[in-house]
């Protein structure tokens, strides 16, 4: 969530209106959605409870969760208007997330 808050702050109002941020996690997302609504940023939080979509995207951290469960690996993927992948940020350490400035740069380069 912290990186999503930073991203909301780094984008201008017009840029936030011109892009859809879709946050995917295995959880029920009511709490995240309330927080985003409080920040007045238009994020859509969607649940991927069985990680089917996360797996299709190749973004699984195998055995990285409690009890050796698979969990998503933190990743940020920018798609252009035509749904084509234009920028991907992956980390090899789950504490590290993309710097909002890099995301903003990729958005502006579209």
């Amino acid at each position, binding site marked *: *969530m*912290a*990186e*999503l*808050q*930073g*991203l909301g702050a780094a984008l201008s109002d017009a840029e936030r209106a*011109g*892009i*859809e*941020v*879709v*946050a*995917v*996690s295995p959880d*029920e*997302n009511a*709490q*995240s*959605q309330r927080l985003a609504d409080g920040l007045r940023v238009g994020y859509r*939080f*969607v*649940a991927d409870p069985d990680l089917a*979509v*996360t797996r*299709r*995207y*190749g*973004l699984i*951290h*195998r055995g990285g*969760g409690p009890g050796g469960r698979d969990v*998503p*690996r*933190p*990743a*940020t*993927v*920018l*798609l252009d*208007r*035509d*749904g*084509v*992948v*234009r*920028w*991907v940020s*992956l*980390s*090899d*350490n*789950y*504490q*590290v*997330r993309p*710097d909002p*400035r890099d995301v903003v740069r990729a*958005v502006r380069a*579209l």
Partner: protein
Amino acid sequence: MTAGRLAALSLGICVITIAVYSMLLGVPAVRNHPEGYVAAFAIAATVAGLGLALRRRWYGWTALGVSMLLLTLGSYVNFVLARIPDAPMVLRVGEPAPPFTLRDAAGRPVSLTDYRGQKPVLLVFYRGYW
């Protein structure tokens, strides 16, 4: 510097490191350099060792014990636990993203095709509420 002050300095570095890292997790420069807390605990352990070299007192051993414990835990978290093994890359820049439809908290379906021709989409995959 006296042995007592070195022990206090070592413990102070440990406390400040934990406080700074947990309070500033939202700041990319802090969050994205987790090796920083490992380095800080290593400095704290070195300072505690210097204090012990001056005088072998209980407070010196305490500072060394605390800083070594944090150094071990921190190294384990950062270099072992948080490490994500390499996996084959599925997404390719320049190729269409795999389509999907998932539901939001209100049960409404959200589909990638909703935005086709409308808006760029930033997909953020994360583990949960943190």
